[in-house]
């Protein structure tokens, strides 16, 4: 089987607009959650807090004409892609563009565009709808925009599985290279759904934290006082590449992708299956795919959303798969600081796994104050730790019962 490595990555998210700032803030336990400013928030919204990108001026990245044609989720995806492409030096080296593909996912797509055009339809009728509405809104357009910009002519689509979207994107990109369909895959996720309708919708589900008076303390994965997830926007993009292809063009190698598992709970549209059964099966599949003994794994980047049900069932799933070894695992939640970027989450967390290998540090799960008897593993509470990590498992679960697990290995 062809080996697959990561030769580039980039991100823009609530704790950093590049890799270095992101890592520095994560290691120091800095929250990116604050009161919503993307739109006029008021007390009618149960949840009034989110992880928003700071100091991002779209005009600095895109000209006037482009700004009108792309949704914010695509802007964030393109910014992260440029960082990843630069790190991989894709624009400076020769490669077969027909064997370079793109799978960048999003959980929802151009939600802001959808809302503004829908409002126009109601207020002013169908003739006022922009011809750019559909191409701005559709969830596959980020993959197309990236292909057009960098002339990547291989396989290209997106995968939407709500909050598991990016892990399914990365896993499918990994398979595409293993199988030989592609030599290079630009993959990851982008999301910009901190919008009135999306916040209202997730609030109606009672899925979001309502700790509005303490935004930075609201996301508290695995803590007993957790009360829901926090919406966030952002993007993470990785360049995956066949090992020999990467070596032959002298690319830097940040990590290896060694395993992928995907399952469905087939249980309920939003609630996880009892005891995290579906997630546990996905983890087992990924471990088998990577051909590693569970005991060899020592670090998990959890889904860790801070909802009562997720964190409890995710913990049970780890105990099911790892048995006694579960107590030895270091488990952290990147979402404790970034919030939940939905379809981008798995991609940002994959980048965190790469940085964990590279830096020999594991960032904390912040706001862990009140132990929950049902969540009794080591979540790296509040302070980062120094530790050499050889394997990292990244876990994502999505509404719909979609489970996606990717395993990364330190490249030596």
């Amino acid at each position, binding site marked *: 089987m062809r080996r697959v490595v990561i030769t580039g990555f980039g991100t823009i998210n609530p704790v950093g607009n590049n890799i270095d700032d992101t890592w520095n803030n994560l290691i120091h336990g800095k929250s990116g959650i604050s009161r919503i400013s993307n739109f006029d928030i008021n007390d009618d919204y149960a949840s009034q807090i989110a992880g928003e990108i700071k100091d991002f001026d779209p005009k600095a990245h895109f*000209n006037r*004409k482009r700004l009108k044609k792309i949704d914010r989720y695509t802007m964030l995806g393109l910014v992260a892609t440029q960082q990843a492409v630069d790190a991989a030096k894709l624009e400076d080296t020769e490669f077969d563009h027909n064997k370079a593909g793109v799978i960048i996912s999003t959980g929802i797509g151009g939600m802001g565009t959808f809302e503004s055009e829908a409002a126009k339809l109601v207020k002013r009728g169908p*003739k006022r709808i*922009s*011809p750019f509405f559909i191409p701005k809104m559709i969830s596959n357009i980020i993959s197309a925009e990236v292909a057009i910009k960098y002339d990547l002519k291989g396989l290209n689509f997106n995968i939407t599985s709500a909050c598991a979207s990016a892990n399914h994107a990365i896993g499918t990109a990994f398979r595409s290279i293993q199988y030989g369909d592609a030599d290079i895959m630009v993959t990851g996720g982008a999301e910009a759904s901190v919008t009135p309708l999306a916040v209202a919708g997730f609030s109606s589900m009672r899925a979001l934290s309502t700790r509005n008076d303490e935004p930075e303390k609201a996301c508290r994965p695995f803590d007993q006082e957790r009360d829901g997830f926090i919406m966030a926007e952002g993007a993470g993009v990785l360049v995956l590449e066949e090992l020999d292809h990467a070596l032959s063009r002298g690319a830097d190698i940040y990590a290896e992708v060694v395993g992928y598992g995907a399952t469905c709970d087939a249980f309920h549209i939003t609630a996880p299956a009892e005891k995290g059964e579906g997630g546990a099966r996905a983890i087992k599949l990924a471990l088998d795919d990577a051909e590693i003994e569970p005991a060899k794994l020592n670090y998990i980047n959890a889904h860790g959303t801070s909802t009562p049900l997720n964190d409890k069932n995710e913990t049970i799933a780890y105990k099911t798969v790892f048995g006694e070894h579960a107590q030895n695992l270091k488990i952290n939640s990147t979402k404790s600081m970034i919030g939940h970027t939905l379809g981008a989450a798995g991609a940002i967390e994959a980048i965190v796994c790469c940085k964990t290998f590279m830096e020999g540090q594991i960032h904390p799960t912040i706001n862990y104050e009140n132990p929950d008897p049902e969540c009794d593993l080591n979540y790296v509470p509040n302070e980062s730790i120094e530790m050499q990590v050889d394997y990292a498992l990244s876990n994502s679960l999505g509404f719909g019962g979609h489970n996606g697990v990717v395993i990364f290995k330190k490249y030596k």
Partner: protein
Amino acid sequence: MNIEQKVKEIIVEELGVEESEVTNEANFIEDLGADSLDTVELIMCFEEEFDIEIPDEEAENLVTVAKAIEFLKSELD
């Protein structure tokens, strides 16, 4: 502001081009870099600004700056 000025202003804004490029002879697609969706949006902006309705069969003929100005002047007189 006269119609000609306003039309050119809209074109500069919508197509993201420089004012100097918007000559009367300029073709939206060939000279000003518009694609078919841009031209639809441009026509919608004219409709909005001048509060008129431009039927598709008319819109198809408005391929240059001069043709747009000429059509709008005749409609608004």
